[in-house]
């Protein structure tokens, strides 16, 4: 795998080498170098502040004046000054984010869950807070990176869970469900608060679209003191959250409450205002906005292109259908509905039709269940509710009379050989046509962007996928001062990606307005806190299992829009949080395992989850069987994740809070000093048995043993001297 070295880490190493080499002869220069090394180490350890860099620059200038002609001085300046000149942004990023993207600065290596979150949420931080019962603080932490913790707690596709290290042992932490639990608690108890706002500035930003991307950008811009106006076609905020996701997955109240938090900050919302219809870009430009953010989503749809599609009002697309229902329509689409497509939207449409009273709902898909692109969980829940599936079926014509659909002509398919993309194409079977007895057709075969309203922006570049082209790290379009994000850039994508894009755009717009250069790489997530680990005994850590989400009964699910997932109980949530391995602290470098196995020859650490590509068995309980509590692992741990402590009459070894071993301490029988556990003493005794004399069966500290040995020597009578 590719790996580039962190420039902060490299500079610390180079300067250390220069100091150790003895080439800095002048004492004053040596001291200067040591002072600078201290400051650089602070940055590498995450304890550096903004003042560190200015002090380093000032010192470098002074050194140049004092020792400029010295050859070693030039080398010194080259190491520190050269690195700062070429990679200042890396040093700044370390100070601001407390994360080292390469992971070389061990204490700042980001956790995989945080890195994988498109919004960059400090996952280990909020999981720990939830474990401690500090739900409101957890939500406050999340909202530093994502203004929609409750929405994401219910509908996020949770990439974090796919990267969760705990999954290499058993199952990933239920990160999404814990977030929903904490958000609901915090909102219910009045602890869900907005962050403090900066003083207002003079800049005005216009955001087009009040979906997750637009609202996120609005939130961070208004917190930064910007005057923000949001143009929205719908009568309320939320975009696709509101009109694309059915209420049984995401209750409207959840969206309303989180949008209200943004409204409360003073964002100016202009609802029922469609760009290109109710207001034009030209009109908006006359209002002297400093920047625009386009986040109009992908609300248009693909047509099936079959005869009869345009002839009957009972043939509709899923996007329109779901929007209609979300906006209050509760009419049954038809008694026998056919849903065309195999994706998540098809499943949503089918489950919605069922809840509206359709007696028979059939999903028509051209391939088999294995190839269905919808998520497994969604398919399973649809099956539970009684949705029918007609696989290997292609609709070829909508039939009807007197303006009413009365059937869908379909043909059977079989899967042919793989094409160049590796997919098995469905091939129609000759003579297999048949009529499906239905009265409604809902097509769910894909969405696209409706560019009306953006056409006057003729310098906007569009991709061949009919999406707006942006520069990924900052969401800047080809039109100056215009930024874009969410589905309008990615095509139909996920909620959390839209939130991540909104956050990036807010930062980029801030830079644009202040004349600061834009980033060239995607942002590094910010480590918000380094919280102490929760202590959990190893057997408990292994025994805790991810709780199953309680679901609404199937009978009720079929007839109401009540939320299907009922949420965790308090006990479930707190226990689940204790399963977290705290990967923000343990970087899985393997030093502890190597030292225990290769140097100490004990091999007490069975931590097979360290490797991403080839994880093997992990069992925290094994440590207690073999470990002698020598402390070699803890001493060599680069991040302090492995800790050994004496507590009362016990010595305890912990890895990120997981108590791996605890043994009773022994004390020197002469002076009472702590000796360590018997197992450790026995190990040492065995190792030195051949080279050292034993002092009876007494347990003695080194000092007392030396004295006792000296005493023995004194008691030995010298040989008799021959006369």
């Amino acid at each position, binding site marked *: 795998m590719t790996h580039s070295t962190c420039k902060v880490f490299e500079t610390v190493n180079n300067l250390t080498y220069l100091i150790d080499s003895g080439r800095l002869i002048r004492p004053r220069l040596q001291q200067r170098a040591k002072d600078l090394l201290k400051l650089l180490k602070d940055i590498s350890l995450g304890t550096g502040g903004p003042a560190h860099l200015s002090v380093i620059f000032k010192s470098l200038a002074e050194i140049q004046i004092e020792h400029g002609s010295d050859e070693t001085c030039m080398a010194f300046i080259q190491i520190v000054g050269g690195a700062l000149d070429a990679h200042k942004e890396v040093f700044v990023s370390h100070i601001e984010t407390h994360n080292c993207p390469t992971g070389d600065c061990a204490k700042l290596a980001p956790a995989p869950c945080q890195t*994988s979150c*498109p919004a960059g949420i400090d996952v280990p931080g909020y999981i720990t807070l939830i474990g401690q019962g500090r739900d409101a603080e957890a939500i406050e932490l999340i909202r530093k990176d994502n203004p929609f913790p409750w929405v994401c707690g219910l509908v996020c*596709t949770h*990439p974090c869970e*796919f*990267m969760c290290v705990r999954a290499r042992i058993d199952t990933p932490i239920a990160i999404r469900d814990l977030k929903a639990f904490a958000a609901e608690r915090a909102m219910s108890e009045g602890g869900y608060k907005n962050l403090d706002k900066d003083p207002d500035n003079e800049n005005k930003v216009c955001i087009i679209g009040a979906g997750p991307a637009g609202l996120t950008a609005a939130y961070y811009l208004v917190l930064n003191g910007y005057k923000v106006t949001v143009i929205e076609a719908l009568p309320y905020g939320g975009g696709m959250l509101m009109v694309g996701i059915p209420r049984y997955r995401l209750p409207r109240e959840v969206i309303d409450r989180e949008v209200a938090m943004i409204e409360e900050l003073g964002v100016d919302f202009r609802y029922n205002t469609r760009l290109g219809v109710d207001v034009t870009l030209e009109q908006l430009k006359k209002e002297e906005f400093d920047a625009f953010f386009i986040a109009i989503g992908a609300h248009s749809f693909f047509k099936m292109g079959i005869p009869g599609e345009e002839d009957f009002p009972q043939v509709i697309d899923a996007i329109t259908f779901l929007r209609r229902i979300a906006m209050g329509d509760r009419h049954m689409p038809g008694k026998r509905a056919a849903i065309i497509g195999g994706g998540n939207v098809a499943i949503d449409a089918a489950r919605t039709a069922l809840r509206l009273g359709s007696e028979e709902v059939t999903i028509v898909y051209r391939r088999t269940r294995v190839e269905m692109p919808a998520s497994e969980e969604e398919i399973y829940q649809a099956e539970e509710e009684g949705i029918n599936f007609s696989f290997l079926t292609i609709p070829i014509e909508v039939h009807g009379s007197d303006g009413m659909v009365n059937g869908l002509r379909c043909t059977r398919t079989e899967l042919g050989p793989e094409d160049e993309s590796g997919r098995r194409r469905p091939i129609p079977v000759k003579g297999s046509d048949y009529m499906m007895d239905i009265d409604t057709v809902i097509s769910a075969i894909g969405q696209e962007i409706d560019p009306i309203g953006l056409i006057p922006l003729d310098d906007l570049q569009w991709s061949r996928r009919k999406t707006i082209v942006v*520069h990924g790290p900052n969401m800047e379009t080809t039109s100056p001062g215009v930024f874009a994000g969410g589905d309008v850039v990615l095509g139909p994508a*996920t909620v959390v990606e839209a939130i991540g894009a909104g956050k990036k755009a807010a930062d980029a717009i801030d830079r644009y307005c202040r004349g600061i250069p834009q980033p060239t790489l995607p942002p590094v997530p910010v480590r918000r806190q380094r919280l102490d680990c929760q202590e959990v005994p190893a057997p408990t850590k292994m025994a805790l299992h991810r709780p199953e989400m309680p679901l609404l009964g199937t009978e009720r699910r079929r007839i109401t829009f009540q939320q299907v997932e009922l949420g965790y109980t308090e006990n479930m949530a707190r226990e689940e949080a204790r399963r977290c391995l705290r990967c923000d602290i343990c970087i899985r470098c393997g030093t502890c395992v190597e030292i225990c196995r290769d140097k100490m020859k004990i091999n007490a650490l069975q931590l097979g989850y360290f490797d991403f590509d080839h994880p093997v068995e992990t069992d925290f309980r094994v440590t207690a069987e073999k470990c002698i509590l020598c402390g070699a692992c803890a001493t060599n741990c680069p991040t302090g994740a492995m800790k050994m402590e004496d507590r009362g009459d016990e010595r305890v070894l912990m890895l990120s809070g997981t108590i791996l071993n605890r043994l009773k301490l022994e004390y020197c029988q002469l002076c009472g000093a702590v000796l360590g556990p018997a197992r450790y003493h026995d190990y040492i005794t065995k190792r030195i048995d051949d080279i050292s004399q034993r002092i009876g069966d007494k347990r003695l500290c080194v000092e007392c043993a030396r004295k006792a040995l000296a005493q023995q020597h004194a008691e030995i009578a010298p040989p008799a001297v021959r006369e």
Partner: protein
Amino acid sequence: MILRRGQKVEIYKKSKDESWEDYMDNFVGLHGVVTDPDTTKNDPDALIEVSLHGKGTHRFPQDCLRVLEE
């Protein structure tokens, strides 16, 4: 090749697709997990969301992806 959620993949080459950006060159050789495939219609042209080990979550064209394990 139908990509599914949870599959391990490798960015094994640069893509020639227009959506490939310069900063993505650093990702070649990295392993990751498919976190959001095309959930609409298995379009071979769709951009696929992949979480890369240590490098964040990004959307990639499919021609640069290779499945490591089923």
